[in-house]
């Protein structure tokens, strides 16, 4: 017979430990809340207050807004922005839906290949498609005739460039929605002798409607807030994002820049609120008992699907390929021999090779600090926070960045951190502030990923830990980190890639010794060095793809692949 006789731990020691636990998680939660307030909320407040002040900082109410709406060229930009947003949304959602439908509802071959290729634009800065379009359809473009005399510099170029760049974002959302179609419903439709279009409308579209709506709002937000494409290929066609840049960098008119920023916030906020509403609806209609849907075998549909996806993929590859190709050409279009001259960045203005290494450092810093901070904040909030008001405050602050355009965030950071009396002023002009602004800019998606990951971890684990006198810290190390590894790894890559490719927030914040690669693309293009700009954009994309490969090796193979408990069956 086994004897169970080991002394109990003394209660007083355990009590002491409990008190310490309360202390550090409570303090940590306060610190993260304060950090979110400082790096997200206060700068935005600053933008709004500048919009309500004159050049000398005196409060003038809405008089700046009156000036704004009395200026025809500025109001025209608002109109342009909204029309570009609507057109891009229409094209992106149509194309992404066709592509996702082909991958989920037909038996076309090479699905994995096409799925992976659809994500390619994510790895490039939005400047890359714009530059490629200049080479394809610009004044010396190889396919110039295709436009029948119309100019690529303007709405046409902006719409094509943005459609390329936003495509993967819409595709991912719609693909997920279409994948969740319930096979049973198709069987039911067949048994009712419903025709193709009837089934398509009442089953496929109806099931994917929230995903489609969400894709619409996300695409619209990205289109109205993007800066890179419009800057490179917009020509005389002004949009709100380029207006902010002109007001601030060109005319040093910070008050008017802020007004445009606040105006730009409105469509983004609206779109964001609509998307949240849709997401809430969607969650409540998901059904765990759905069976997977297997499309019928049909040569015709497979053929059409393959043709459609191939066409889209070829377009994506052509755009990427054009930029890459142009970057290796000696002197477009007169001397088409290969050369690496365009990669001698140190010979051009814009930041040189240093800007590339700055970007690498900044993106690494963003990914490391961001992943740790957002993970810990989400964990404290989801699992240690006992105060409902504090919890909601953190959740709310975490959602704000999604609704704030990068240009507005960048502007907010100048105002806030450039004040000499701000104790954080030392950050101004450093790589650190670039990293922090990127973390703030891309915060929401990361926070939501971690929240979802924690939702899958039973709260009873923490209660077991309590019953055997183990601390929150032990739980973090022993359970939360290993179980959340897939989310941690994808957040890390997401932050790295976005920090490498973003222009909008950082364009206001870099200093001469902290120039970034993406900003260098912009500046070289501005200076007419379009081939080196293509080269730098290519370099950024290749770096992001390499990061994806290294990331796959480290996380998926070496870490998650070794967590055999994830897959090992009985």
């Amino acid at each position, binding site marked *: *017979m*086994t*004897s*169970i*006789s*080991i*002394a*109990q*731990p003394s*209660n007083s020691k*355990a*009590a002491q*430990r*409990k008190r310490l*636990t309360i202390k550090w998680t409570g303090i940590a939660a306060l610190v993260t809340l304060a950090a979110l307030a400082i790096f997200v909320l206060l700068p935005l407040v600053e933008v709004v207050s500048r919009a309500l002040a004159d050049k000398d900082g005196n409060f003038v109410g809405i008089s700046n807004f009156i000036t704004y709406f009395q200026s025809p060229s500025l109001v025209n930009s608002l109109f342009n922005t909204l029309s570009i947003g609507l057109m891009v949304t229409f094209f992106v959602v149509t194309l992404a839906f066709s592509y996702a439908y082909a991958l989920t509802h037909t038996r076309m071959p090479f699905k994995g290949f096409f799925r992976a290729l659809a994500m390619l634009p994510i790895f490039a800065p939005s400047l890359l498609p714009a530059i490629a379009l200049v080479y394809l359809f610009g004044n010396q473009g190889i396919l110039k005739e295709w436009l029948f005399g119309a100019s690529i510099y303007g709405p046409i170029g902006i719409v094509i460039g943005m459609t390329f760049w936003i495509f993967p974002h819409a595709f991912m959302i719609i693909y997920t929605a279409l994948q969740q179609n319930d096979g049973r419903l198709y069987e039911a439709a067949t048994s009712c002798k419903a025709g193709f279009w009837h089934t398509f409308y009442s089953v496929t579209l109806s099931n994917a409607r929230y995903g489609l709506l969400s894709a619409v709002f996300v695409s619209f937000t990205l289109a109205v807030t993007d800066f890179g494409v419009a800057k490179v290929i917009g020509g005389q066609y002004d949009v709100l994002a380029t207006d902010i840049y002109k007001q601030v960098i060109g005319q040093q008119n910070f008050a008017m820049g802020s007004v445009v920023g606040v105006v730009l916030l409105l469509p983004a906020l609206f779109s964001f609120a609509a998307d949240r509403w849709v997401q809430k609806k969607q969650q409540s209609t998901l059904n765990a008992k759905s069976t997977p849907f297997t499309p019928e075998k049909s040569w015709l549909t497979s053929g059409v699907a393959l043709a459609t996806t191939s066409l889209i993929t070829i377009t994506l590859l052509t755009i990427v390929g054009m930029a890459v190709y142009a970057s290796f050409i000696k002197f477009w279009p007169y001397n088409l021999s290969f050369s690496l001259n365009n990669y001698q960045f140190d010979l051009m203005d814009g930041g040189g090779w240093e800007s590339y290494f700055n970007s690498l450092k900044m993106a690494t810093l963003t990914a490391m600090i961001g992943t740790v901070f957002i993970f810990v904040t989400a964990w404290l909030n989801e699992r240690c926070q006992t105060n409902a008001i504090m919890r909601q405050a953190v959740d709310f602050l975490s959602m704000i960045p999604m609704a704030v355009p990068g240009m507005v965030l960048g502007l907010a950071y100048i105002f806030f951190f450039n004040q000499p009396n701000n104790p954080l002023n030392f950050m101004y002009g450093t790589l650190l502030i670039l990293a922090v602004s990127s973390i703030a800019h891309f915060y929401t998606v990361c926070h939501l990923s971690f929240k979802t990951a924690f939702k899958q971890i*039973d709260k*009873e*684990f923490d*209660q*077991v*830990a*309590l*019953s*055997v*006198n*183990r601390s929150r810290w*032990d739980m973090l190390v*022993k*359970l939360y980190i*290993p*179980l959340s590894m897939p989310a941690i790894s994808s957040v890390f890559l997401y932050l790295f890639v976005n920090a490498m490719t973003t222009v909008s927030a950082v364009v206001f914040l870099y200093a001469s010794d902290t120039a970034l690669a993406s900003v260098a693309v912009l500046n070289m293009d501005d200076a007419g060095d379009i081939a080196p700009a293509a080269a730098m954009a290519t370099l950024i994309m290749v770096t992001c793809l390499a990061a994806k490969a290294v990331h796959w090796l480290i996380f998926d193979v070496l870490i998650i692949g070794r*967590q*055999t*408990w*994830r897959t*090992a*069956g*009985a």
Partner: protein
Amino acid sequence: MSYLNIKNVSKSFGSKEVLSNINLDIQQGELVCFLGPSGCGKTTLLRIIAGLEQQNSGTLTQAGHDISSLPAIDRDYGIVFQSYALFPNLTVSKNIAFALKSLKLAKSEQKKRIEELLELVGLADHKNKHPNQLSGGQQQRVALARALALNPGLLLLDEPLSALDAKVRQFLRGEIKKLQQRLGVTTIMVTHDQEEALAMADRIVVMNHGCIEQVGTPEDIYQRPISKFVADFIGSINFFDNDQFAIRPEHISLSLSASEKSRAVEVAAVEYLGSFTRFTVKDEHGLYTVDIDSNEASAMAHANTLHMHWLNEHVLNMQGAA
């Protein structure tokens, strides 16, 4: 003096009262089942005992100490949840080692202790497996071993068997009971399965709508239910004479021929349930459920009219019961 004393404990979530004025004494070494329909507050009461939930009023005393406002981490108990909450990323022995950490044992001692515990629940061969390599019943026993690791004064089990197949459940009932008796650990088990409670408990606490209906041994509860609710919830029962009297289905006999005290009934339905057969019969007052050993029942299965009979000593007097 009792080991655990619960006095005037009440609990509300918002405006909804979930437990009202609970009073209960639990003796050292006994196995007590909280039994009641889903939502009646069993889990809440268990969580209050563990300190995972704070009562609105009332006091708890464990082993002579007032634990009413002691935080969970300072209380002396081990707990097993319905989901087991085994760390999926840790092996069986590491799951148990997790619980042992606060004892700060030397490595060899800890190893010995883990082996003891696994021996105790019959899983010594599985110590290096991960939870997903174990069956549900094995996972349940690992959770039990982990809950016992710190040698707690009180073992709390919240529906520990309800996620398992009927066969495994029956086997583990016996195993848990044996283990509990061997260790002599005071145990509270929450269940909504009356059969489980009858089979395992030294005493059963029947709960309904946040109140304790009756506390007693399984025999007490089954043979002397003090309320209609208890009589109805534990086993099946027939009420008659305006609900003033009741009788269990197995205490009624049926035969093809009439006898002195029998009355004729019409057969409304026959349900074959393996070892016994359940007849639903009808007289002018209403329906009765009658359980007959299947060996005897086969002869009567096709009859339209039968003769029903019972002994008065089996009739429960429900006059005055709630």
